[in-house]
């Protein structure tokens, strides 16, 4: 069997960066008070923040289809857990914090 095909140059596989997330919502914003999944533990949302030595970071990892939440207290990892994509909607970090006026198309 020829090795020609196997030896052909190949382009490198793409590298994906996680999406930095500002907020995770377990309920649809503006919708009825029904959670999108029962995995939220009753909480409405999780927000990324940094306050008094506690830093909460959230990142969406599309290749694993989940959100990774990390809580670091004074430089030490205290909590880390993942939430499936289907349980939440997310607000990306690069989105302005102020709600923008809605325009109807």
């Amino acid at each position, binding site marked *: 069997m020829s090795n020609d095909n196997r030896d052909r140059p190949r*382009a490198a596989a793409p590298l994906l960066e996680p999406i930095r997330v500002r907020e995770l919502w377990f309920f649809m914003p503006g919708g009825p008070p029904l959670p999108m999944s029962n995995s939220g533990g009753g909480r409405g949302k999780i927000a990324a923040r940094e306050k008094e030595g506690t830093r909460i970071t959230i990142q969406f990892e599309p290749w694993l289809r989940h959100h990774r939440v990390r809580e670091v207290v004074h430089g030490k990892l205290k909590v880390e857990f993942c939430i499936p994509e289907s349980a939440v909607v997310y607000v990306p970090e690069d989105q302005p914090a102020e709600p923008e006026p809605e325009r109807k198309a």
Partner: protein
Amino acid sequence: MKVYGLADLSPGSDDRAFVIATWSSSYKSSHFAGMIAAEDWATVMHAQIGKLLDRPDTRTLVARGGRDFLYGFIAGDPDLRVTLSEPAGGRRWVDVEYVGVVHYVYVKDAFRSEAHPDGSRGGPRIARGLLGALGIEPAQPFLYTCRTGVVARLQEKIPRARFAPAAARYTNYRDHQHEQR
């Protein structure tokens, strides 16, 4: 505020109606839309789009503003991996691994962010957010199955994307890679 998440594609849902209606109507004017009589367009395409959305490999995500407002959607399969040969100048060919297939991206016209003629970029870049949510890196090789005028104008944003309508036509594209002969 825009939130990104999975679309509710259950029969009769608002998300499903939005995705099918906007996909069908915006694709109708594409030169690649096929030889379908205008009066049959909705009947044919709504059924075809529905079939594609209901495939187990297809993921559909929406950009939502509150409960009742949708900015746009994306449908595709980020897990598809195929290696295709591309000309690399002269008689050389190179194998390129394509990661993911995008069947369609739609953003409502008023919220699109196409670059202005002077080069500056405006708008909220919702399509880029949807591609990221699906796990597609715009600058890297991926396949897309529906070509429209908007895709042609944005070619420099997706320089390594490859038009492969067969990936939507066949459920076994990964195995057989039905290319044009």
